[in-house]
C-alpha cells in the first residue's frame, strides 16, 4: 500500500460525494455523458494512478487503485474508471509512456470485425483491440457503434470496424494479457461491489430508522434486524476480502485469491440486494428511489470479470493438480497435512 492511499481515498470520497449524485446518474441513464464528473476524475489524476511518473503517470500502486474503485462503486459513479486505468497501464507497459485519454481495452473474438461488450464505447475516444497478432489502437470516431447495456444501464456496446489499423506486437502473449485483464477486471468488480454494498447498507439503515410501522421504527423489529445483519455481515466480509486480495494482487497467490474473492462477493450480492429490497418494500422498487442505482450495479457486476461458475471451474482445475491440502494453501504453510485421511 502506498503512503498516499488514505489521502487519495479521502479526496476521492469527497469529490464523488459531491459530484456523483442521484440526479446526475439519472441524467446519465437518459443518455448524457457526464463530462463534468469525468473531467474532475481526470484532473485529479485518478486515470493515471499506479503508473510511474517517468511513464506519464502519477505513481501509486494497485492497492490504491482498488481502494479508489471501491469508492466509485460506493457512489455508483457512471464512469469507466476501472477500464480506462487498465488501458492506460497497458499502453504505459507496452510503449513506455502514456498520455491520458478516454480509452478502454477489448479482446478480439476472432472475426476481427466486431467487438462485443465494449464498456462505454459510445463515449470513449479509442479502443485498444488485443488479438493473437498483437494490439491495435482503434479510433472510435470512425466506427459503427450499436448501443447495448448491462443490467445497470452501463454501456456495453458493440463496435463494428470496417477499416484496417496498424497492429503492434506485444511483449506478452495474448493468453497472458487476457488472464491479466480477467484477474484485474474481477478484482475491480469486487472492489466496486464492496462499495455498492456499503451504500445499500447505508440506505437500508437510514430507511429502517426513518420509516415507522405499527408505531415503531422498522429497525426495532427482529425480522428487520435479521436483514440489517445479513447486509452488514456481507459488507464487512467483502471489505475484508478486498483488503486481503488487493494486498496480494502482485503476488503468486493472486489468481487463487482473486478467484475466491470474486466467487464470494458475487455470491453475496443477492444476500445484500434481496435483504435491502425486502426492507425497503414498495418504495425500493420504484425508479424514483435511489436503491436500484446500487442493486442493479451489484447484479450487473457479479457477472463481469467471471461469475461464480467461471471462477469455481478455475479453482477446481487448480485443486486437482495441486499437491497441497486446502489447509496448507489457506495458511500458506506447507508441511504435514491436516486432513483426517493422511494418518496410518
Amino acid at each position, binding site marked *: 500500500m502506498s503512503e498516499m492511499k488514505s489521502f487519495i481515498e479521502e479526496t476521492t470520497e469527497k469529490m464523488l460525494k459531491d459530484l456523483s449524485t442521484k440526479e446526475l446518474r439519472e441524467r446519465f441513464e437518459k443518455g448524457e455523458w457526464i463530462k463534468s464528473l469525468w473531467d474532475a476524475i481526470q484532473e485529479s489524476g485518478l486515470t493515471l494512478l499506479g503508473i510511474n511518473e517517468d511513464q506519464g503517470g502519477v505513481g501509486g500502486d494497485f492497492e490504491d487503485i482498488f481502494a479508489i474503485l471501491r469508492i466509485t462503486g460506493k457512489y455508483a459513479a457512471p464512469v469507466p474508471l476501472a477500464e480506462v486505468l487498465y488501458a492506460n497501464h497497458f499502453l504505459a507497459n507496452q510503449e513506455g509512456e502514456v498520455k491520458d485519454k478516454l480509452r478502454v481495452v477489448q479482446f478480439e473474438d476472432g472475426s476481427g470485425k466486431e467487438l462485443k461488450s465494449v464498456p462505454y464505447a459510445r463515449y470513449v475516444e479509442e479502443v485498444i483491440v488485443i488479438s493473437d497478432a498483437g494490439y491495435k489502437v482503434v479510433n472510435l470516431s470512425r466506427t459503427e457503434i450499436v448501443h447495448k447495456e448491462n443490467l445497470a444501464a452501463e454501456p456495453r456496446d458493440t463496435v463494428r470496424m470496417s477499416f484496417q489499423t496498424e497492429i503492434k506486437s506485444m511483449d506478452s502473449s495474448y493468453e497472458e494479457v487476457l488472464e491479466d485483464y480477467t484477474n484485474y477486471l474481477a478484482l475491480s468488480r469486487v472492489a466496486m461491489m464492496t462499495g455498492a454494498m456499503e451504500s445499500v*447498507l447505508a440506505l437500508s439503515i437510514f430507511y429502517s430508522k426513518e420509516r415507522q410501522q405499527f408505531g415503531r421504527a422498522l429497525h426495532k423489529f427482529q425480522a428487520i434486524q435479521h436483514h440489517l445483519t445479513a447486509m452488514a455481515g456481507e459488507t464487512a466480509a467483502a471489505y475484508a476480502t478486498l483488503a486481503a486480495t488487493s494486498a496480494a494482487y502482485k503476488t503468486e497467490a493472486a489468481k487463487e485469491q482473486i478467484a475466491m474473492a470474486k466467487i464470494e462477493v458475487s455470491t453475496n450480492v443477492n444476500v445484500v440486494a434481496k435483504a435491502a429490497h425486502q426492507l425497503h418494500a414498495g418504495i425500493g422498487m420504484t425508479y424514483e428511489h435511489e436503491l436500484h442505482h446500487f442493486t442493479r450495479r451489484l447484479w450487473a457486476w457479479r457477472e463481469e470479470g467471471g461469475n461464480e461458475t467461471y471462477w469455481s471451474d478455475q479453482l*477446481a482445475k487448480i485443486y486437482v493438480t495441486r499437491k497441497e491440502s486446502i489447509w496448507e494453501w489457506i495458511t500458506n504453510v506447507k508441511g504435514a497435512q491436516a486432513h483426517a485421511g493422511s494418518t496410518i
Partner: protein
Amino acid sequence: MRQLQLPAFSFTDKQRKFRQEVRSFLQTEKELGTFKTHADSWLSGYSSEFSRKIGEQGWIGITFPKKYGGQARSSIDRYIVTEELLAIGAPVAAHWFADRQSGPLLLKFGTEEQKDYFIPKIIKGECYFSIGLSEPNSGSDLASLKTTATKVDGGWIVNGMKTWTSGAHHSHYMITLCRTSPQDSNFRHGGMSQLIISLKSKGVSIRPIQYLTGEHHFNEVFLENVFVPDNRVVGEIGNGWAQGMTELAFERSGPERILSTFPLLEEATKIMVEQGDHRGLMEVSKLVSRMWSLRNMSIGIASLLENNKDVGLAAALVKDLGNSFEQRVAEVIRLLLSTLPDKHSTDEYSRLLAECILHGPGFTLRGGTTEILRGIVAKGVVSV
C-alpha cells in the same frame, strides 16, 4: 462504516514457522495414536492427557505473562495454535475455556493470589474451568438470572442452578455469574458478580444433560448453600456482567466459529481430488472461498484486538456468519459424496459427516444465539 472495515493481515515468516512447528507436533501425535480427528473437537474432544502435552509445549495460555509460567506471546500466536488444533480436530475441550476465557479473565481482574494459584496450573494443562452462565429460566435473557450469593462472614453462600455447563463433570472450577444484589429493573446489568466455585465443594451436584447423540458434554450444576470464600471473588462485587463481557470479542470472532466442521471439508476434498471429481471440487471451491473470506475477517479482528481496538460489532458478525458456514459445510458436502453418515463408522468421511450433521444445531446456539447476535449487530449499525 469504520466498524465494518477490517484490515488485511499477513503472517510474518516467524509466525509461519511457528505454525509449521505446531502442525508437525500435532501430526506426529496423531500418527502416534494420541488422538483421532473429530469435528467440533472443542466441545466433544476431551483428553486431559492431550491437554497436558499441549501444556508441556507451552501452548496453553501462550499469551499469559512469563511470571506465571506463560510465554507472553502475541494473540496472533495464540490464533495460530488454536487454528491448527481445530483444523486437525484435536481433543482440546478439557483446557478450552481456561485458555480462552478464565485465564484472561483472572489476569485482567483477579487478585495476585488468584493469579499465582490458578494461572500456572492452567498453563500446564492441569486445571480446567467451566463457565456458569445460563440458567433454566435465563437463556438468551441472561441478565434475568436467579442464582444468588449472600454475604456471610468470610465469604458468600451461593444458591441456584446453572445449565448447559460444558465440561462441568471434568472441570475443577466454574466461574459463576450470580446475583449479589437484588434484581433492579432500571439497571439490568448491575448487581452481578463472578465467583470461582470449586466443583468439589460441598453443596455442588452435577447432573448430565445428554446431547441429542447421547454424548455427555453439557451439565446441570446445582448449587445448594455452597460456601465461596472472599478470596474467590473475581474482580469487583457488582461488576460481574461488565467483566464477563470483556472477552466476548475474542470468544465470538475466533477460529472456533468457523472451523468446527473443517475436518470434514478437508477429508471430502481429499477424496474428490483422488477421484478427479471436477464438479464436486467446483462446489468445494465455493465453501473454501467462504471460509477464506470469514478467516480474513477473523484475523483482521485478531490484529485489531492485539492493539486493544473495540471490535464487538464485527466479532458478532463473524460468529453469525461463521456458524452458518459451519452448518452449511455438511449440507453441501453430503450431496457431493453420498454415503450413509454413521458416527461409529471406521470410514473417516462417514464418521465426520455424521458428527458435523449431529453437532450442527449447537453451533448457532452456543455463545450467543443467532437471534441475539443479530440484535446486537442491528443495534450497533443503527446507532452509528
